[in-house]
């Protein structure tokens, strides 16, 4: 049960900010999110959206554990 966090407009698209999902890898988590909410899945694949696992930015796939924290980050706007 990875903990998934959404930031910025992604949370607006999804209608939630934090939720637990059961997924063994980041890629399978993305697939599950796309299936359960196509608008969110599309937003997560959008330009400039990054993923962080346990507060480290990740490109490509990575294994998740039950304790993983996965964050999806839209383009950072700066302050």
């Amino acid at each position, binding site marked *: 049960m990875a903990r998934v966090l959404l*930031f*910025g*407009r992604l949370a607006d698209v999804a209608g939630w900010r934090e939720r637990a999902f059961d997924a063994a890898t980041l890629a399978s988590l993305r697939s599950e999110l796309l299936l359960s909410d196509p608008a969110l899945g599309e937003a997560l694949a959008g330009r400039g959206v990054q993923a962080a696992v346990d507060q480290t930015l990740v490109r490509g796939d990575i294994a998740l554990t039950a304790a993983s924290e996965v964050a999806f980050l839209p383009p*950072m*706007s*700066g302050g």
Partner: protein
Amino acid sequence: MRVELTQAAFDAGARLSAFSAGRSEVGAVVSFTGLCRSAPGLTALELEAYPGFTETIIRGVAETTVSEHGLLDLEIIHRIGRIAPGEPIVWVAAAAAHRRAAFEGCDRMMDFLKSRAPFWKREHLTGGDARWIEPTAQDHADLARWAAAPAESETR
């Protein structure tokens, strides 16, 4: 070196007094205060951070800035949450023996904070509408001036 995110409004002048006090080794302190500008229909800005992650990224860029510009100290205070027009959003102070380093260090830190720092910014408008803001082309052009900077790769 200090990086602080705060929900509460702060007084940039009080921070400058504290930062500058008792520094007989320092010749130059440059501070930047970014204020929330009023605009037609704007009721507030809202800044969201990723707690922990945001501070870590900012601290990494701050450490690079301190070492590459030879700063004696660097402090960053950043508001999160709702910010009213006229309130400070961000305050950066750089201390150095000489003014060129202090100007450049503060300037560079701000270029990073304004364009690539892990914040998500929303404008709240009269009537209850809200819209998310993304960085401007000018922000990216400003940041590109420090081309060799690890700041770029760290947030990519």
